[in-house]
């Protein structure tokens, strides 16, 4: 009951969003972002020119296989790329009209946790084992807002109720090991949301959880988004999660976004051969005789990424041009863009 009240209180005074029609206010623009890591083996080009934008109250899912640069992209937005060995070599991250890549560390800290916050993959390791939940919840709040301990505690209790943890005032004094995995992830979410950020980056928030808890956490995301209007970037390789809560989907491969569009467009009209392959490799329970179709091969070496489309070597439709020149983006609809030579006028005749 208390929880409902809190949710209600939070919803008043803030713009509410009816259904999926959202205000078309851009809060984040990532332009040609490039991130490299210098290692003993050479320079890894982890992110090779990522461009996307995010509107207020929207959920953008970034999907792709391991090592495609999803997490590096999110860390770059958050300003969490360790420098060195990492380096943002090009591009802009424009948040509310300001380019975060040009910020000094101390200025960045004023945004981290306050305007932009992050949820980590593994709730078992994301919480400090030697600090109480209460302290971990309130320290961000107290850093950014200079409020008293009592006020911070009230807010922390409110947040714990919001994420569905009962008995919050007692729970505040407990340590992470006294919580289950699902509850810890709720706490991580509460920590991320306590300063009421405008942008939430969730880096595989459900990967480490079992399926029943996953569903609960995803519902929690939806609920919170409805109440607070936060924009979410969801990093995942779980297409089931994407289908549930994303508005738009960006498919990443070898450090580039190769296809981006609304959820409907990506799921029903996938255009890039990689996106198709990705969707085909999802097990389906409704088709009895169906066999899983893996994408053969492995992603390219990002020490020396190919000049053309990185998917060429694994692509069943690869043409000569694919290996040599990176395809120009083709707009299939207002929101649906794909980087593939197959969409070029000159290739249209070949496969029909």
């Amino acid at each position: 009951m208390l929880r409902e009240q809190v949710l209600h209180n939070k919803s008043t005074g803030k713009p509410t969003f009816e259904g999926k029609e959202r205000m078309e206010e851009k809060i984040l623009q990532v332009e040609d972002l490039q991130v490299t890591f210098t290692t003993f083996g050479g320079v890894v080009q982890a992110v090779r020119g990522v461009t996307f934008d995010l509107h207020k109250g929207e959920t953008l899912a970034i999907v792709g296989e391991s090592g495609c640069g999803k997490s590096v992209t999110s860390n770059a937005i958050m300003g969490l790329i360790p420098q060195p060995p990492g380096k943002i070599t090009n591009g802009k991250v424009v948040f509310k009209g300001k380019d975060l890549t040009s910020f000094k560390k101390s200025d960045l800290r004023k945004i981290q946790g306050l305007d932009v916050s992050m949820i980590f993959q593994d709730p078992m390791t994301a919480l400090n084992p030697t600090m109480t939940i209460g302290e971990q919840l309130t320290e961000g709040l107290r850093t950014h807002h200079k409020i008293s301990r009592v006020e911070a505690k009230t807010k922390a209790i409110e947040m714990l109720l919001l994420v569905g943890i009962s008995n919050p005032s007692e729970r505040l004094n407990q340590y992470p090991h006294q919580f289950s995995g699902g509850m810890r992830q709720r706490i991580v979410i509460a920590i991320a949301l306590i300063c009421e950020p405008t942008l939430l980056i969730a880096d595989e928030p459900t990967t480490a959880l079992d399926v029943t808890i996953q569903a609960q956490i995803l519902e929690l995301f939806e609920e919170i988004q409805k109440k607070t209007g936060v924009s979410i970037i969801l990093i995942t390789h779980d297409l089931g999660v994407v289908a549930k809560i994303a508005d738009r989907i960006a498919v990443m491969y070898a450090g580039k976004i190769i296809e981006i569009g609304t959820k409907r467009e990506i799921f029903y009209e996938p255009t890039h051969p990689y996106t198709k392959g990705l969707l085909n490799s999802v097990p389906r329970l409704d088709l009895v005789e169906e066999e899983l179709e893996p994408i053969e091969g492995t992603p390219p070496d990002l020490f020396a990424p190919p000049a053309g489309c990185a998917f060429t070597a694994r692509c069943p439709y690869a043409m000569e041009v694919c290996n040599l020149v990176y395809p120009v983006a083709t707009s299939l609809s207002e929101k649906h863009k794909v980087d593939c030579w197959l969409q070029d006028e000159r290739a249209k005749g070949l496969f029909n």
Partner: protein
Amino acid sequence: MIQYIIKRFFMMVLTVLLIATLTFFLMHAIPGSPFDDDRTSNPTIQENLEKYYKLDQPLPVQYANYLKAIVTFDFGPSIKKPNDSVNSLLARGFPISFELGIITILVAVLSGVTLGTLAALRHNGIIDYLAMTFAVIGISIPNFILATLLIQIFAGELKWLPAATWQSPLHMILPTLALATGPMAIIARLTRSSMLEVLTQDYIKMARAKGLKPSRIIIRHALRNAMMPVVTIMGTMLAGILTGTFVIERIFAIPGMGKYFVESINNRDYPVIMGSTVFYSAFLVFMLFLVDIVYGILDPRIKLHKKEGESS
């Protein structure tokens, strides 16, 4: 908690008893007696002396007497220093040894942790290399070599510091330095490696994502977790420092307990050997107990007591 302390207390008593028993039998296994030097070569005198100190009694009776002495903590007079009781030797020597030990531990822990943390923060930087080179040297040089070197350089050549004895803070610098360098180097290396590991943890990244100040992240989030291995070896390190004080006290002519302890073994001064062994082992066991308590305070996952509601 109280239950735990009581349990630990009995374990401690048992440990000390075991050490005392071992020492007793080892001591009597050494050939010869306290009266073996030339002045007391007369057999009659020897016999009388042995009677006086009850050394003529069979071993089990002596053992029983000795256990009684432990319980009452009255080890009687020293054989070689008839004017001193064991208790008065302890009362005179131990505070000085304790002072040396405590200062050493403080210096070793504070500078070791600082050095290790700095090295970890500047991983593969100049500070890191310097600190680790220093640490390897510190670990490799035994404290008695270092002590003589320090005396030679700072007291002999430069004449900046006094070479021996224990009077003013100035006198304390060289012995402490000689004794603390080894432990400090070990702590520095340990802190560095565990700090490096902790800094890659998700909760550190999360703390950064909260926009916390770097100083808070290091001190509040990282250091406490990185200290666990350091606390773990503190136990054995205490024993090392304790025995180290014996050597260092001898080199620097510090009138601590170490001098009496070593002398007593050479002289087979049974009461002094027994008294100081029991006292030192009790002290060490108690320090180890403190270390365990600190462990429990540092890491809430380690429970010192069983009760209290568990997880969800």
